[in-house]
């Protein structure tokens, strides 16, 4: 009983931070955003930060999010350095439009938004709030539901900026947009940001998100990304999480798909202290396709928690979830995938698989694949495995003269490759392949672009 009281207090404390700073938080946003903010804080007071009594957070303990001392990064501070000096993407052949967030705020104040071509925009969400309210209003806050999710409510109350992407009807962006999320601070920091991507009818785009930490203090990031994919739209969304072991990443992705649209997401978790990825997909028109894939390689005391919810609201849609993980040392992982097939969503095809390899006795995996089905003419299946490498395959490789250790690495790499193969941005998938190979060999004990030696 005493503990519940304490948790409530923490949530009250977080609400107080809002009260103390509400003028500052409101200042930069138009009314419709602040209305959403008010709903957010009201809802957050009810829900708080989810704890393990919430069935969806059964295997995750977020106490430290508020038990540790943190500063909230509410407004961007003036920086007088060139971002290129401290960070550069190390895939030279990757040709992208780069947009950068520093501690959750759009970095390039001199060019808050860019016209990529044919009216396609990428830039600051806060800028879009104010300059193109009509377009933003139609989608902002519509897909990320705060009624049941404390993290979304929390974000709605505090967030003020993030990335805005708009691809008008019929526009096909060949060049990927690369979002670089950087965290840099002298003290422990809590960061909230919000992204909104709108793809019109027949619009196509590729978005790559890279998460990096640049200083060795603690970080908590709570982000909400809303994606609207119009009729026939196509989106490839690739996320590479590569933060240090003191960083906590709470990522909430909400995807709304219209008729015949196709969205592929790939979440590659290479590094991070605590990572929670919530992915919600609503297939709200006939003939949608959704491929949700993820790979996590964790060691030391890391925890990776993936929650995927696919809502088949309309008939004749296909969804495919595949998450794979390799867990080393005393790392822990959780997978919670849920497929909901609504009453009239006939001819649904929904698949879900979670495969894990435990490398040590101290590593632990909890997996919970779930099906909830209310229509009868459907093809649904799910499966989960926790185990080791296939002994027959191992033997086969050894009979060809390959060292046992090398054979194990080959099989682990092959295990992971299935996910990477789904990334169709050539230099990126090659780079990730390489990173994964190094990671498995233990050569990548710290993040690729990080000056800090991880603990």
């Amino acid at each position, binding site marked *: 009983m005493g503990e519940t009281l304490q948790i409530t207090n923490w949530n009250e404390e977080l609400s107080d931070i809002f009260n103390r700073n509400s003028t500052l938080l409101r200042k930069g946003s138009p009314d419709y955003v602040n209305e959403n903010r008010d709903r957010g804080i009201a809802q957050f007071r009810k829900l708080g930060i989810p704890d393990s009594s919430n069935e969806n957070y059964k295997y995750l303990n977020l106490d430290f999010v508020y038990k540790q001392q943190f500063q909230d990064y509410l407004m961007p501070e003036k920086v007088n350095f060139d971002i290129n000096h401290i960070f550069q993407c190390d895939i030279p052949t990757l040709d992208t439009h780069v947009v950068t967030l520093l501690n959750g705020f759009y970095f390039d104040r001199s060019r808050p938004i860019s016209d990529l071509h044919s009216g396609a925009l990428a830039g600051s969400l806060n800028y879009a709030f104010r300059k193109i309210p009509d377009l933003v209003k139609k989608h902002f806050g519509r897909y990320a539901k705060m009624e049941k999710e404390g993290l979304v409510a929390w974000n709605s109350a505090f967030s003020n900026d993030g990335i805005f992407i708009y691809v008008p009807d019929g526009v096909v962006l060949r060049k990927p947009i690369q979002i670089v999320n950087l965290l840099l601070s002298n003290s422990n920091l809590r960061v909230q940001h919000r992204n909104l991507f709108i793809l019109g009818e027949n619009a196509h785009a590729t978005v790559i998100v890279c998460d990096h930490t640049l200083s060795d203090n603690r970080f908590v990031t709570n982000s909400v990304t809303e994606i609207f994919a119009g009729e026939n739209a196509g989106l490839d969304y690739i996320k590479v999480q590569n933060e240090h072991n003191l960083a906590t990443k709470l990522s909430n992705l909400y995807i709304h798909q219209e008729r015949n649209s196709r969205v592929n997401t790939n979440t590659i978790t290479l590094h991070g202290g605590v990572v929670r990825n919530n992915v919600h997909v609503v297939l709200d028109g006939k003939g949608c396709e959704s491929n949700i894939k993820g790979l996590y390689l964790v060691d030391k005391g890391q925890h990776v928690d993936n929650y995927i919810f696919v809502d088949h609201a309309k008939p004749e849609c296909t969804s495919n979830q595949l998450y794979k993980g390799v867990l080393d040392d005393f790392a822990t992982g959780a997978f919670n995938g849920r497929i909901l097939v609504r009453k009239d969503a006939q001819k649904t095809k929904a698949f879900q698989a979670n495969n894990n390899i435990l490398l040590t006795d101290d590593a632990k995996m909890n997996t919970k694949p779930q099906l909830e089905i209310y229509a009868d003419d459907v093809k649904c299946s799910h499966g989960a495995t926790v185990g080791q490498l*296939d002994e*027959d*395959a191992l*033997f*086969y*490789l*050894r*009979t*060809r*003269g*390959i*060292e*046992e250790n*090398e*054979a194990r690495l*080959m*099989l682990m*790499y*092959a*295990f*992971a*490759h*299935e996910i990477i*193969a789904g990334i169709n941005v050539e230099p990126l998938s090659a780079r990730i392949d390489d990173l994964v190979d190094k990671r498995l060999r233990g050569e990548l004990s710290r993040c690729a672009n990080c000056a800090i030696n991880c603990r």
Partner: protein
Amino acid sequence: MEIDGKEILKSINLEVNKGEVHAIMGPNGSGKSTLATLLAGRDLANVVEGEITYMGKNLFEISPEERARNGIFLGFQYPIEIPGVSMVNFLKTALNEHRKYRGQDPLSASDFLKVMQEKKKLVEIDSQLTNRSVNEGFSGGEKKKNEIFQMAMLEPTLAILDETDSGLDIDALRIVANGVNKLKSSENATIVITHYQRLLDYIIPDYVHVLYDGRIVKSGGKELAIELEKKGYDWIKKEISYNGMILDKSLK
């Protein structure tokens, strides 16, 4: 040798010399495949007693990969599918491990590809196969051809072909057999494990052994295979029940 407390192989006495082709025949469940995997080093069973000496080494003391690098090749009855591992990467790693063991430098990528092209031609394997993952989505025939192709790449001293003929149509059988024959030399030896005499029309054995109930019950020349084909295994079973064990001691 025992598996789960059941005695599988009881009495095997076999000597194979360079340049020889031995055929081991026998009905289902007689222990043929167990013998093959035992030679390659799968520790799925307990060896209660016995020894296998290979070029002066006690095989039970060395790992599967070391056996392979010493020239033992097992053509699997059911080649294993390994999704995600490309044939090229797989073979390159294997070949270079062999080379390293022999004190040779690893092959460069282009040299490796050259060797691969050569061997592909030698065993008439479809060039597309090497672009895929190991055995993944291969047809039964393709898998068997792939085994022979790997044998060509790794140039073993002792090749053990476990039911390489099963599931092959007549054309594929010829291709596989031709491959084996081309690779045969006075410096290596082959053990062909099979059910039927059919394969032995193409790969002519020097010796034929009949394995039954974990024992080699009869050995002879290639005519033994023909006799078996005619009379069936029941003939052997009957003979055993009349005479107990028969072993042609005149054989080396």
